[in-house]
């Protein structure tokens, strides 16, 4: 298979600097856009490519951009492009790779995207712990300004763009795009109500597009090689390639670029090397900590947004977390809920107070203090917190996904905890 996003990245290889990036065809898409393509042309290619956002929700990128007021329809003032490089979803480690090892790919993608929507200021909102990526991105930006890829009159096109790296002060909710905007404004990162969507009123009240790192990294390639080429990359319903990752107790945890629609089994067995010796696959979260469990029965599903959706989960970030048979599912869910409860922004009731309540019930169960009614309480909480629209943003419903599917698939485990008044896995020597 052709490597696209990771063509400059291989294990053991040094990060790509501007020279190496250019040598491998880098910034040719930018040159092409600046010389022969209008923003409309570029947007059209992206729309045609069926690229879907890699931040988790899989929203079609071309459609998202189409809501940005263009030309006369836009009141005078700035427009913003923001790269969402917050990557704090548990079990997700793909954007880090792209930024640490090929920063220019992201930057080129951002310049092109900004050009498409007519943005003149852009930000890379990156989690503060990504010190290496921050350093490399900053260095890369300096090179770009020096080469005229950024700044006034980019490559003589008359288009101008500034780009800044903004390290976050750390909170998972900053990954939610409207919370991210508040964070960029130097405020508490509570999500905003939608509508109005950021496309019309975002950063400082101005039109703003927020896209994930991986989404943006696709842009140069699509501009360069066209929509049809991109669509042809996928082996299932969806277009392009995707960074898939596997963590947990597998032989070879890691992150690989594979065609959209690659089967779970292939990712798990061929790339991650299967389960560690002595362990069996019990279940997996297909795309990060806020997606529903799937089980061995789903191994042959294609990693496509709709396919995984139909199976009752979400593709999310495409980085799987594997649950083995010696690891306690209750403990795993508790770990996740604990994370989400802590990372709640504290704005809306079901999340702020509901998640700690779920955490408390799970703690009781995990520690042998569970009661039979606790499972009903958990079901009740899932109904109360778990539906989109019940809360102000998607954090809390996401938090409930592993819990609700664990109760579906691993209910006996919960019941054993309660009836046996202890975690059965601890005696086995699991985590």
């Amino acid at each position, binding site marked *: 298979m052709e490597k696209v996003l990771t063509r400059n990245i291989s294990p053991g290889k040094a990060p790509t600097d501007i020279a190496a990036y250019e040598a491998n065809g880098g910034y040719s898409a930018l040159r092409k856009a600046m010389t022969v393509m209008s923003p409309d042309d570029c947007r059209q290619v992206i729309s045609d490519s069926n690229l879907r956002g890699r931040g988790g929700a899989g929203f079609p990128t071309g459609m998202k951009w189409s809501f940005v007021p263009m030309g006369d329809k836009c009141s005078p003032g700035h427009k913003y492009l923001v790269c969402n490089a917050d*990557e*704090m*979803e*548990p*079990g*997700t*480690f793909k*954007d*880090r790779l792209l930024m640490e090892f090929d920063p220019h790919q992201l930057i080129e993608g951002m310049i092109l995207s900004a050009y498409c929507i007519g943005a003149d*200021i852009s930000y890379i909102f990156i*989690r*503060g*712990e*990504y*010190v*290496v990526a921050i350093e490399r991105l900053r260095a890369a930006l300096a090179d770009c300004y020096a080469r005229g890829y950024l700044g006034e009159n980019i490559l003589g096109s008359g288009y101008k763009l*500034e780009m*800044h790296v*903004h*390290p*976050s*002060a*750390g*909170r*998972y909710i900053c990954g939610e795009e409207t919370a991210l905007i508040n*964070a*960029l*404004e*130097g*405020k*508490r*990162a509570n999500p905003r109500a939608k509508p109005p969507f950021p496309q019309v009123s975002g950063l*400082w009240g101005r039109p703003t597009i927020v896209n994930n790192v991986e989404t943006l990294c696709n842009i140069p390639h699509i501009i360069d090689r066209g929509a049809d080429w991109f669509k042809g990359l996928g082996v299932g319903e969806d277009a392009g390639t995707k960074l898939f*990752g*596997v*963590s*947990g*107790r597998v032989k070879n*945890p*890691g*992150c690989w670029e594979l065609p959209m629609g690659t089967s779970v089994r292939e990712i798990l067995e061929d790339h991650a090397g299967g389960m560690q010796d002595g362990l069996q696959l019990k279940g997996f979260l297909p795309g990060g*900590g806020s997606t529903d469990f799937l089980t061995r029965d789903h191994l042959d599903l294609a990693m496509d947004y709709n396919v995984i959706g139909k199976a009752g989960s979400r593709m999310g970030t495409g*980085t799987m*977390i*594997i*649950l*083995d048979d010696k*690891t306690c599912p209750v*403990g*795993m869910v508790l*770990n*996740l809920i604990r*994370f989400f409860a*802590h*990372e709640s*922004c504290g704005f809306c009731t079901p999340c702020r107070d509901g998640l700690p309540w779920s955490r408390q019930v799970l703690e009781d169960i995990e520690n042998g203090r569970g009661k039979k009614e606790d499972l009903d309480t958990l079901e009740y909480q899932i109904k109360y917190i778990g539906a989109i629209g019940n809360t102000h943003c998607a954090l809390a419903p996401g938090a409930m996904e592993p819990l609700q599917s664990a109760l579906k698939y691993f209910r006996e485990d919960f019941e054993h905890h309660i009836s046996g008044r202890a975690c059965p896995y601890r005696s086995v020597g699991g*985590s």
Partner: protein
Amino acid sequence: MSNSQMIQTDLNSVLTLEELAEIDHELEHIPYKSGASIDALKIVQSSRGWVSDECLQAIAKHLEMSSEELEGVATFYNLIYRRPVGDNVVLFCDSVSCWINGCDDIKEMISQKLGVDYGETTSDNAYTLLPVPCLGACDRAPVMMVGDDLVTHLDRETIDTIFANKESGSET
């Protein structure tokens, strides 16, 4: 005129010229001063380790915000420290993949070794141990950050090497 006695501490001299210059640099691309609040907190923290009340007030003044407004921001984020921390902050990942890979035991080892629990600083002020949400290195779990360095594949050996100068629970 305010109903309280408006007598101000001289906050002008709290921040260093370098810090102020760095903050002002950020302001160049931000339409409102308060927009630089997080940058400013981080700038001050990077040189001092944490943000004291005095610093917070001085930043607020510089950015024409109220201390309350800035406090609201400072206390919202995980990586702004409003209490003193040690020379190195140990950000220990306790999220799901690291947990599956046994991070609870590693955490115990560290706590033993350093004699501190989450939120505490070793008596020699060398380390402060804090939990951190998923560090995005799940394929190399369990992991932690010591200062700016990511340490992966944690086990007893790595812990022993990294905290080599520390003896179990000993006070240095």
